[in-house]
């Protein structure tokens, strides 16, 4: 039997953490993980944030990031334990045998050097190629990865190419020295969904063509299912399940894996439009001060009481700007907003308290949406005293009621945001919005920063609260799966304009316009072979190129 390319045994990784107000202490973040990877195969590492997947990937290069340290176990690459070799040998390993593709190519490229120099650097340094050969190989890789103008793109500086292109350059950088193994660390997570699919396809093809083995790290099971042969599911530093991609996707054994596979299977019955919409956005055009470019162009949408309107689009589509216009943070240059049969004034300072109260907002990053120096009780209690003049016991009781409603329960009033998990923080933000008894809540990407299972919980909570409180949601997101789960009507935005708008059933049914087709088809599906299927019949180039 041949030795596997990468053999990991009992890998333990520790880190030093700095809890607020306490002494730093050491904790273990990976508790003994074993796996093998044969040459030319792809292993997907999947898990939520804090599962230790990046840390494990970097351990294959005998590297610990920041204060992270490998504290036990063995990592065998090409038949030697790289944790026990000398530093000179580790240098030959890194950049020669094992290379790395990070999540953010923009940060991982040196801004002061040309792309070509950085792509070929490791190959030349490791003595694999001469400068001339390395550059020829780089150009070949640029071509293979579908980069425009492969002959000359290497002469540019990193800031001169787009994010999706730079991510492909990073892949070329990793493949250039002909490594045996590439560690892909969330390579498509920071990209827009329509760009992601192209980069994903390019990576998959490059892996196949060069016959390199890969560790593919991601939090998105649907993505990893497209590229990997095997999948290992991790949870909090331990392995939950390991199997072939087919088995994990179609026949998951562990409860946790089943939950990951069936995530976003929320069913939501579409509600019919009423005669009297709660929010009417008419002919809204807006631009930021000091610019001469309309970020919103003649936007018209309606939202009915107790329903959800989803605004879908990629970064730069103007969807968040629309929220700013509705809240009054950015007065529009043209158009009107009618809320509850009255016209809203264009800018925030002139709105009356009732308008402010009935229109609440929940943010993407719950971390920055709560004052870190205020307790949960203060955060939720402030709207109560501000709008309803509730004090003392009445306020306490109402806060507890709200906490019960968001399923947090007792003992949270005196906690600070730093003591809450990501999902709990977002729940507190929801409670703060609810405290104002609003008619409309604007939800700006409220689940995008959360792990899939946690996001699912938040969506279910939002749907439940809608039933109880009869509140409407303006739901801004780039994620179509979320939209399918929660929306009654949908507006698809592209470059500042609404390109498709109507009830959910109508918007999501063919025939599609080109952009909606592209957007819909780009959402990774939890099935094998989806990537190939999609690429075969696409009508439009992705927006990122």
């Amino acid at each position: 039997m041949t030795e596997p390319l990468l053999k990991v045994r009992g890998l333990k990784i520790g880190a030093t953490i700095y809890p607020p107000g306490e002494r730093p202490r050491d904790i273990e973040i990976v508790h003994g993980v074993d796996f093998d990877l044969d040459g030319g195969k792809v292993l997907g590492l999947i898990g939520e944030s804090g599962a230790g997947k990046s840390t494990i990937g970097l351990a294959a290069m005998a590297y610990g990031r920041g204060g992270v340290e490998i504290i036990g176990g063995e990592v065998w690459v090409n038949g030697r334990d790289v944790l026990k070799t000398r530093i000179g040998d580790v240098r030959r390993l890194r950049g020669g045998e094992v290379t790395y593709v990070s999540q953010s190519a923009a940060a991982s490229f040196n801004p002061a050097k040309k792309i070509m120099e950085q792509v070929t650097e490791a190959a030349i340094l490791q003595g694999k190629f001469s400068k001339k050969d390395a550059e020829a190989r780089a150009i070949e890789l640029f071509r293979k990865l579908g980069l425009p103008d492969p002959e000359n793109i290497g002469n540019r500086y990193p800031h001169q190419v787009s994010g999706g292109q730079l991510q492909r350059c990073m892949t070329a950088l990793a493949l250039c020295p002909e490594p045996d193994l590439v560690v892909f660390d969330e390579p498509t997570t920071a990209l827009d969904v329509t760009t992601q699919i192209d980069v994903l396809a390019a990576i998959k093809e490059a892996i196949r063509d060069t016959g390199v083995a890969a560790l593919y790290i991601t939090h998105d099971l649907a993505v990893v299912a497209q590229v990997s042969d095997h999948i290992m599911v991790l949870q909090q530093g331990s392995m939950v399940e390991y199997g072939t991609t087919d088995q994990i996707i179609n026949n998951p054994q562990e409860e946790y894996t089943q939950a990951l596979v069936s995530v976003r299977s929320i069913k939501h019955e579409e509600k019919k439009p009423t005669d009297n919409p709660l929010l009417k956005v008419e002919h809204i055009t807006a631009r930021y001060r000091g610019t001469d470019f309309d970020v919103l162009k003649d936007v018209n949408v309606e939202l009915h009481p107790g329903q959800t309107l989803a605004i879908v689009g990629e970064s730069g589509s103007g969807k968040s700007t629309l929220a700013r216009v509705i809240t009054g943070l950015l007065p529009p240059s043209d158009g009107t907003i009618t809320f509850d049969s009255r016209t809203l004034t264009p800018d925030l300072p002139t709105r009356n308290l009732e308008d402010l109260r009935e229109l609440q907002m929940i943010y993407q990053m719950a971390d920055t949406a709560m004052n870190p120096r205020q307790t949960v009780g203060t955060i939720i209690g402030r709207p109560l005293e501000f709008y309803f003049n509730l004090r003392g016991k009445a306020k306490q009781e109402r806060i507890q009621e709200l906490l019960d409603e968001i399923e947090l329960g007792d003992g949270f009033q005196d906690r600070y945001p730093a003591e809450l998990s990501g999902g709990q923080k977002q729940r507190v933000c929801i409670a703060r919005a609810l405290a104002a008894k609003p008619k409309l809540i604007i939800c700006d990407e409220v689940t995008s920063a959360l792990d899939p299972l946690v996001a699912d919980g938040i969506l279910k909570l939002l749907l439940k609260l809608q039933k109880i409180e009869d509140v409407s949601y303006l739901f801004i997101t780039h994620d179509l799966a979320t939209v399918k789960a929660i929306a009654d009507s949908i507006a698809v935005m592209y470059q500042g304009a609404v390109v498709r708008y109507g009830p959910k059933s109508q918007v999501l049914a063919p025939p599609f316009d080109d952009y909606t087709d592209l957007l819909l088809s780009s959402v990774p599906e939890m099935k094998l072979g989806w990537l190939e299927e999609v690429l075969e019949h696409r009508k439009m180039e992705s927006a990122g190129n």
Partner: protein
Amino acid sequence: MRNIPVAALIGLFFTCLYFLMAIFAGLIAPYGMAEVVGDVWEPPSDQFLLGTDSIGRDLLTRLIYGGQTTIFIATMATILSFTTGSILGFFAAVSGGWIDQVLSRFVDLIMSIPSLIFALVVLSVMPTTMTILILLMGLLDSTRVYRLARAVAVDITVMDYVEAARLRGEKIGWIIFREILPNALSPLVAEMGLRFIFMVLFISTLSFLGLGVQPPLADWGGIVKENKEGINYGIAAALYPAFAIATLCISINLVADWILNRTTSLKGGRG
């Protein structure tokens, strides 16, 4: 207490010691402030613990009173610079627009001239009274506090929780005092220590140049000036006040360093 590092504890101890000595100078000092009690530059003895100065005053007494003057002026100037600088800085950050522009450009202008040079220019026509010194130092230095306070506040005002407060309809008072201030306090407190050090050095330098506190009033920089000729004869009298300045400043630096470190750990380690 157990979480305070040793260096910070030492700093805290000496800082408190100096302040107590300044407050109770009249009770501790063995002689009168300007009282000539011995010969010129007498060596240390039981009678004069640190010896006497250039005209025969007890050096220890001078040092204690000098500390009182120096610390008093530095404290008042720090308070002035701090209140002016941080209030204007927060105000500029929250208001934005032309108010911010005007204030910031004016501060740029003041800071384009080194403060010592600017102080010398003004002192060339102004009488050097204590009030003028405090006003001059405090206002000149408030530009630095302004910049820090504004920068910190700008970082905070872009946070979603401040936007949430605005959307709620909160008044500017609530936004400054309840949302921004609690989050800006730690870096500002640490900065306050550094500003105080700067003030001590500033007033000492001015007095040393003969343009600060005027004799017979004692202050540390002035004592150095009075006794500097002694150095040439190997008499160390001028070094004592300089030593006092250095230990006070190092102590406050240690405390400020600790506060700053605590702040960064509050933000989640070294991330």
